[in-house]
């Protein structure tokens, strides 16, 4: 039996490859227009929002722990928005940027530095045949390859356009071993249509595994099970395949995402990421009433929050509000975490913080070919954004042995100099960015920082405490803390405790400039004192720094 297996398996695999080569299994989807957003993204659409897209790989990689050891990951990596992700930003892109082919040599600011990896143009010969939805006999319809408005060049009778066709070689060149912890960050606005393509590049360190991957958008209200990412309840994406998840952005809040294949294994191994939805209230005109913005949302049942008739009303009408939208500390219009209608969730700068834990024994077993135990899982690295202290505070960006940030990885030549990404040398000798996001919280003096805290630990609860600035908790599980009569239930605390699968929004309010002057440093740390460690080192763990700065760039988060 064993011999037969050894003989026939390679033959079977070769046949599989031969078949797969004929089918276009890698692809992306990011239409220029849709029925809901009929105008190009630069035009305002009546419904608000726009089309946003992102491409991620599902595979494996290595990360560097704060004690210097390398840890094997099952992981997601970026296949779009590479430049933004290297800068610690969400990888989500507008349609026009996403549909610009990625160029590893493009500099910051060039859409090609954030476009979709692998994108190739199609020449519109004449037409293709597609299934006719109204045919009961399996008939087809004739359709132009280039959808209206997508042509990028015309040469005589032929047009070329980007239809979502990708070159598998480019996908594999970038996607293999490019895992990140946390997984690529996603951020969308209410009313956006979001096209998220997951491409399964396989796990090169575990060729014995034929693992599928999925994306579970954790907390999506009224989710369809089809796009919920539970493999038992829907479809899972095989190695060599792409699947585009489609969402209309739900109510604003701090959500998160993860793979849902064998969750105790894939989550522990690192397939966890951050995801948040920004509120419509951010589109309120300067000096206009926030309550008026809230009221305008009540005319549409989709955006309304009617606590008199709906027990799951998400943003109750504020009991008191006279607030208008002003400028924040960086002199741009203030942003809000929720459609609060009263400005109670206003902030100057936001920081996604994801709590996680790694059990090095499980990761070692996960890298080898041994059966895994689940019940006695014991985390020994306690992570904020995939890093433990002191790596959580690293501002400079890790450099390779020749001192070049990001060199050795062609995909990241264009990485911005402000990148704080940590790099890890993979088994092929290439340095790849493994932990793009630090966990430093820079607050402009007198300002308010929104901490979007999510937890995906798979084995225990973790507590995060603030030494100094009180934690003003404004949201829980992606919902505004407010009773159905409209009274705010936000509270002040010096610590928050979360299980895996929970999220919470905290505002660190440093508006008292006497107490919190520029130049001061405070700490976020865990009072689970055994979590202030990095495996055998009795130092580190779940801890990071809060800096009061003269000013903070709200995009790069750089402290000045």
């Amino acid at each position, binding site marked *: 039996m064993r011999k037969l297996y050894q003989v026939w398996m390679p033959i079977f695999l070769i046949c599989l490859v031969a078949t797969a080569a004929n089918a276009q299994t890698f692809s992306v989807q990011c239409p220029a227009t849709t029925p809901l957003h009929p105008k190009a993204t630069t035009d305002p659409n009546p419904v608000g929002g726009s089309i946003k897209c992102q491409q991620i790989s599902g595979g494996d990689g290595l990360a560097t722990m704060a004690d210097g050891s390398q840890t094997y990951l099952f992981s997601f990596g970026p296949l779009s928005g590479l430049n933004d992700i290297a800068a610690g930003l969400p990888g989500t892109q507008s349609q026009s940027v996403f549909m610009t082919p990625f160029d590893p040599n493009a500099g910051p600011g060039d859409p090609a530095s954030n476009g979709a990896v692998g994108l190739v143009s199609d020449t519109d010969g004449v037409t293709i045949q597609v299934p006719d*939805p109204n045919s009961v006999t399996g008939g087809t319809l004739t359709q132009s390859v280039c959808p209206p408005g997508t042509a990028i060049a015309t040469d005589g009778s032929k047009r070329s356009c980007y239809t979502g066709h990708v070159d598998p070689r480019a996908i594999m060149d970038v996607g293999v071993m490019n895992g990140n912890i946390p997984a690529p960050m996603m951020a969308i606005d209410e009313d956006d249509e979001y096209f998220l393509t997951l491409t399964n590049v396989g796990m090169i360190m575990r060729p014995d595994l034929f693992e599928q991957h999925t994306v579970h958008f954790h907390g999506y209200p*009224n989710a*369809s099970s089809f796009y919920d990412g539970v493999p*038992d309840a829907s*479809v899972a994406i095989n190695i060599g395949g792409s699947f585009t998840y489609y969402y209309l952005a739900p109510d604003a809040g701090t959500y998160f995402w993860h793979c849902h294949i064998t969750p105790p294994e894939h989550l522990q191994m690192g397939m966890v990421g951050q995801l948040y939805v920004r509120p419509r209230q951010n589109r309120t005109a300067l000096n206009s009433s926030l309550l008026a913005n809230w009221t305008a949302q009540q005319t549409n049942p*989709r955006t309304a929050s009617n606590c008199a008739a709906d027990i799951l009303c*998400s943003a109750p009408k504020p009991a008191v509000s006279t607030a208008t939208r002003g400028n924040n500390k960086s002199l741009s219009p203030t942003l809000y975490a929720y459609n609060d209608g009263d400005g109670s969730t206003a902030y100057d700068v936001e920081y996604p913080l994801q709590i996680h834990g790694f059990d090095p024994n499980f990761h070692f077993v996960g890298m080898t070919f041994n059966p895994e135990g689940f019940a006695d899982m014991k985390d020994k690295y306690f992570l904020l954004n995939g890093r433990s202290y002191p790596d959580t505070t690293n501002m400079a960006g890790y450099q390779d042995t020749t001192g070049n940030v990001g060199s050795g990885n062609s995909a990241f030549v264009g990485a911005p100099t402000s990148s704080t990404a940590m790099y890890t040398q993979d088994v092929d000798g290439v340095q790849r960015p493994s932990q793009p996001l630090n966990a430093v919280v820079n607050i402009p003096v007198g300002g308010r920082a929104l901490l979007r805290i999510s937890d995906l630990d798979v084995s225990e609860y973790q507590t995060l405490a603030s030494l100094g600035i009180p934690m003003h908790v404004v949201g829980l599980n992606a919902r505004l803390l407010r009773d159905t*009569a409209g*009274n705010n239930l936000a509270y002040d605390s010096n610590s928050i405790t979360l299980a895996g699968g929970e999220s919470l929004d905290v505002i660190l309010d440093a508006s008292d400039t006497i107490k919190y002057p520029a130049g001061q440093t405070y700490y976020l740390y865990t009072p689970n004192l055994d979590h202030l460690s990095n495996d055998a080192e009795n130092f580190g763990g779940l801890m990071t720094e809060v800096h009061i700065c003269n000013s903070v760039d709200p995009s790069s988060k750089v402290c000045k």
Partner: protein
Amino acid sequence: MTPTNSKRTITMKRLLPILMIALTLSLSVSAYAAAPGITGPTFNLVANANYISQPDGQMIYSWGYGCNGAPAGFKPSMPGDFCNGMQIPGPTLIVTEGVPVTVTLTNNLPAAAGNTSILFPGMNVATTGGSPGLLTAEAAHGATVTYTLTATTPGTRAYYSGTQGDLQVEMGLFGAIIVLPATVPPNCNGAIPTSNAAAQAFNGETDFRLAHAAYDHPDSCYDREYLFQFSEMDPRIHTQVEAQAGKTCAASTGCLEVATEPYHPNYFMVNGRSMPDDMDSNYATQYPQQPYNGDPHMHPGELTLLRIIGQGRWQHPFHEHGNHVRILARDGNLVLSQSPDPGNPSVNALAGPLLFTTTTTPGLAMDGIFYWTGKGLNWDILGHGYAGDPTPATLTCDINGYFTSDPTAPNYFEWCQDHGVALESHPFGQVAAGGPVTLPNANILTNGAWYGGSAYLGPDATSRATGPNGTTPPSGTIANSPSGEAGLAFMWHSHNEREITTNNIFPGGMMMMMLVDPRVFVIDESK
């Protein structure tokens, strides 16, 4: 087994039971949950030792409360309901606010266990007989104690042993007491509750609710309800107790020398069962000591009351896929605002949070309302809008945007705004076209056992969407086939993900599949 394929072997091994169970589910009638229990107001309970079944084939020696003779009644009444002399969780006691309750407990545990008792946290309890104990009066080996109490507020609460709790609760001595409101607010028999009931009746469904409201509060109406008790088990403790159970003993504190620390549980249970056993029916004959299941089903728009209790000694973050839960109450205490309710100004508004993960802490009970409607997807989950679609192009909708005017319609409670809105650009099959996405070649995907066969809800849409050549189910969709239930499945599970395993085998543990079923599918919670 070669080292290089050992993990695959385990994966197949772990897949096989679930496939077998799924197959069984598809061949037999599916199982649904409700919140079944026994009625009083006089309850004769007994504490006994017996074995409980786990899906890895283990029979685990445990202690549990059970019925000392036939109970006064079962509620809701189901064919084949029983209350044996030992069960885990203990019998769910269903009582009514303001009605005096008497619970008599007989201790039939082995003499080596010593005394036992019941605590009813949050209740004002008087005791009669028994032996004095630290927290309450206890029943000595072979003896009896009586507790009398009157619940002054409705809601769900835990009860559990007040004697050597670290050992006795671990061994299984816990249960739930549900207090029904003395009066149901009139609006809970109002417009939408009435049309939901009409839709159930039209489709031939029976009402399995214990009441029409969880509390004497107009925002606590519900259409369906489920009770979930979370507990964990370290089998090493159970093995040691079993080995010493035969000791001769006359001490009230028992004669067992069993360390309850360090604690390494590897069974994680919902209502005393691990997945997939929890999705077998209530009172299934194969689980004589574990009568209650965890197998929630609902139709779109039905307000579903979740009664959630943390038993045992660990916290469990219970994640409800599909939507948020509005927390009504904790331990039978409504969480209320100081301000009037926007819908019913004569009472105070709800102030409980909206949660997608309801963390259970030991001894904590909470009540919450969940529903699923498919609101805001921007595509018609019923697949309307195709050529020849008999439904009107626009629907008449209620204040929340749902089609609730015709409870006999198969699309009752459809989210109106997306009626006829296409998902697929060029669908294969008869659903609306012109939407934003193209679904990939199905050959690069793996179908789940509970995948209904299409993105859509219901046998009609699924049959139309899976192609012009009929209703052949895509491979793998065996527990929720397009020709059968065709529901939408959502996993409800502990997000301490290591707890969705059974003795280190995935899948298992604290996990279940919640199904949102199409209106035409009959949810019969007695099966």
